[in-house]
């Protein structure tokens, strides 16, 4: 059994580390497809990448119901770490989650099972954070939409392979929809609901 004292630590400097991490995530959200780096590091429990841990410490608290995928929920150390450092309640029902953490993309639930927001309050939707293999190499994706000057290209190795096909539900749902944050180690890329994939290579 892990005691609190044995848990990996949070940020060394809570205030400035959270600010720096937020700016990386904000820049990622404002410029979809661009790869931003998360600089401050916290101790990360197993199955959680460094970048994901930093985002959790920056954005999660008692106001943000959290949904974890099966692999994460099985790790009692990870659940304890989240509970101790963020206080975010872990929920079973992903349709009420503010954030969802996905460590195994192949087991990503149907996206319409997450909160999509309402027409009056489209902001009440789940932000899905998916840990991926790489945001530097892999298949090429061409993205268009607000925040992108013309076309942005993203090289990424992502599971599920059909993530962008699945995200096409955002086209019909808008302004409701799912916002996705992709994390690979300390790299982060955001795909807000306004981003469209125009073509992809191999």
């Amino acid at each position, binding site marked *: 059994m892990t005691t609190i004292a044995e848990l990996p630590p949070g940020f060394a400097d809570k205030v400035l580390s959270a600010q720096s991490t937020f700016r990386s995530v904000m820049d990622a959200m*404002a410029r979809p497809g661009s790869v931003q780096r998360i600089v401050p590091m916290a101790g990360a429990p197993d199955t959680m990448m460094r970048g994901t841990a930093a985002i959790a410490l920056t*954005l999660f608290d008692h106001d943000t119901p959290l949904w974890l995928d099966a692999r994460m929920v099985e790790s009692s150390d990870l659940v304890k770490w989240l509970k101790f450092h963020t206080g975010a309640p872990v929920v079973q029902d992903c349709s009420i989650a503010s954030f969802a953490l996905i460590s195994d993309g192949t087991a990503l639930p149907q996206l319409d099972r997450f909160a999509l927001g309402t027409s009056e*309050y489209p902001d009440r939707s789940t932000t899905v954070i998916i840990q991926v293999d790489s945001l530097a190499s892999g298949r090429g994706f061409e993205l268009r939409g607000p925040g992108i000057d013309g076309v942005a290209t993203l090289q990424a190795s992502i599971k599920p392979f059909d993530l962008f096909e699945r995200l096409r539900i955002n086209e019909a749902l808008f302004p409701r929809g799912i916002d996705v944050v992709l994390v690979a180690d300390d790299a982060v890329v955001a795909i807000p609901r306004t981003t469209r994939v125009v073509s992809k290579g191999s």
Partner: protein
Amino acid sequence: MNAPAYNFAYLDEQTKRMIRRAILKAIAIPGYQVPFASREMPMPYGWGTGGVQVTAAILGPRDVLKVIDQGSDDTTNAISIRKFFAKTAGVATTTATGEATVIQTRHRIPETALNENQLLVYQVPIPEPLRFLEPRETETRRMHALAEYGLMHVKLYEDIARFGHIATAYAYPVKVNARYVMDPSPTPKFDNPKMDNCPALQLFGAGREKRIYAIPPYTEVVSLDFEDHPFEPYRFNAPCALCGAEDSYLDEIVTDDQGGRMFVCSDTDYCEGRQAAGHHGSLSAAPYREKAGSHG
């Protein structure tokens, strides 16, 4: 007592997390007003409590902050907010648009074009563009949900019916990313074209009304108009009396009780920069000269 009396950038961390989450959703849904739990700030409503909270949530120790009020770096409101963050966050401040990484603004967009490394934070009094047409929040929410903006076009049409042209001169409504009609805050409509396809991220904070909204970089922002009455930015037909600029937004300054007046750039940094570069206008002071023989 060794501990500082307040947190970095004044707000506590839980408040910053809440504002940061609202900012991320605002960016993801361009032009949509995200409700947020606005806090009491140590300044009255109307002095930019919304903009200050947004700035406090994004500001880091390496940022360089510029604050403008109606284009001016030198008014009470601008100086107070600049000093507030210099004191609570220890950030560097500047009046030069090009040097700033975060620009908080009350009702102007700088004349100098913004770049990708800058953030523009607007102070917003009434974020809801439909509010004066429909006072009920439940109804304006429904209208945004349905993209039912006919009422706004009726308002602009009534301008034309009454005055012969669209008489709205500030807070001129825009449509963001072809979806949400948005209040650009009470900026002169002269500034509306600068919002379109802007390289900088634009964030809007309304403290009393508890709303945050955003325009991501490179996003289409269209001023509402009609085919036969297209949108036209307005500026006084005069050069700046101090720097001679013919492309900047001008303030009208009454100089006496005989009808005398002068027009000067509203953007003080732009005007000073032009004067330093040697431009001058009709009322510029004569260039300073050493007295004859004093250096002989």
